[in-house]
């Protein structure tokens, strides 16, 4: 018995995790773009689409729980399934943060387009790269890569500091921009949380392979 059935189930679930991951990634990129373009209609669609992501997450969860109950996996197999349950939760929350950014866009005052967003696009690029790399490390079960990726989280934190300084300076120089800059700070916060969730995914990769739970990155926020 080499467990072909179990292996097939596991592979299907891993494919589904990747699908969920790309849905979350698309939500982040779209949310940022809709903000830059001041496209409120687009942002509303992104908010609605979040339901699809939630639904997908619950589908994967149901299936993973069924596989646990029917296949009774042990050791690495069990950790792989437990990790799927955690990772899909992280991916769903990542998508929630993308939805949060879209929501912010629906609240912002109109202004000349494309909107100037300072360090925010750079920050979002880093977070999206982290998400992609985390999922790659997940599929390849690459512990070294997982540890490396978490170091990139510091860079996101540094960019967030830059956004913060930038926004505060503008608010002090021109109190009329307080509202706008507050929205940008919220946006940066959402991106920072996304990067943080990526480190959770990496921790699960390490856990699946080694059986040890190490906190790879302690966020300051």
């Amino acid at each position, binding site marked *: *018995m080499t467990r072909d059935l179990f292996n097939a189930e596991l592979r299907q679930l891993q494919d589904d995790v990747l699908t969920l991951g790309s849905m979350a990634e698309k939500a982040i990129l779209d949310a940022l773009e809709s903000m830059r373009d001041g496209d409120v209609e687009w942002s509303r669609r992104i908010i609605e689409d979040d339901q699809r992501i939630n639904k997908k997450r619950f589908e994967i969860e149901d299936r993973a729980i069924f596989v646990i109950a029917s296949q009774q*996996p*042990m050791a*690495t197999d069990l*950790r792989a399934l437990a990790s799927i349950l955690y990772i899909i939760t992280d991916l769903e929350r990542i998508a929630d943060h993308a939805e949060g950014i879209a929501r912010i866009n629906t609240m912002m005052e109109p202004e000349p387009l494309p909107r100037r967003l300072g360090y925010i696009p750079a920050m979002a690029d880093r977070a999206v790269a982290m998400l992609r790399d985390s999922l790659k490390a997940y599929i390849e079960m690459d512990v070294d890569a997982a540890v490396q990726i978490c170091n990139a989280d510091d860079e996101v934190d540094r960019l967030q500091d830059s956004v913060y300084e930038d926004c505060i300076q503008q608010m002090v120089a021109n109190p009329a921009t307080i509202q706008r800059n507050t929205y940008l700070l919220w946006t940066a916060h959402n991106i920072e949380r996304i990067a943080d969730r990526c480190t959770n995914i990496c921790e699960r990769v390490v856990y699946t392979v*080694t059986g*040890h739970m190490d906190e790879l990155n302690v966020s300051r926020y």
Partner: protein
Amino acid sequence: MSNSVDLRPASTGQRAAEGTLERPMAQAQPGAIVEPEGEIAITIENLSLWYGPKQALTNVSMKIPARKVTALIGPSGCGKSTLLRCINRMNDLIPTVRIQGSLYYHGVNLYGPDIDPVEVRRRIGMVFQKPNPFPKSIYDNVAFGARVNGFKGNLDQLVEQSLRRAALWEEVKDNLKKSGLALSGGQQQRLCIARAIANQPDVILMDEPCSALDPIATLKIEDLMRELVKDYTIIIVTHNMQQAARVSDYTAFMLTDEQVTGQLVEYGPTEELFTTPKDRRTEDYISGRFG
């Protein structure tokens, strides 16, 4: 337990010599065989066994903790039952058996020259795969060992107490004269446990005690094991991985492969063995990828 450790027949005055045999260990992954903490009931040292020319155990060394459940797992034919039978000298009954190495029960050499195997089997009781009540009443089944051993105390009390401990009393108390064979499979198995308990053992060996039982009866026996382990040392052989994971504190994984017959591959706290096994072969076996 209250029983002091003396396994001599009443007539002998000498304690068994405790010879230690130094033989090379079978190759196991470093760190894969863990020494349990706390009081040790059984110490197995470099145990090898042959049935005639055929080797069945090779250099097994392990310490079995007192008042814990220890599970023996491994593929069919790897020597689990053989090892279990060494612990209460049941293999003595097979004429072709040859044993090398040592087994200690609370420090006493079980195979010492003046050890009485009958006393060993009273202290170290056994419950078998197929429930095997005698074709006698429930009462007589439980009282059997006590009568044979010339028990002087209150027999009714002993029977009731043993049936209670085996979680069978409530179901049978109104009809103790009923034949043991008239009980359901799960009840018969608990009757056999009651019979073992009535001998006031210290260690209870169970060889696949649930394999003939339905899931509910199985869970009852598992609950019973967790209850009994407060007072007894339990060693169980099981093919059910989930059962080993549920009921045992320590698990030993045995294997026969091309190189070595009946070796101990890994032994440690159950939680670790089933979540992060140290030896690749253990991982393959428990996750069903064996062979």
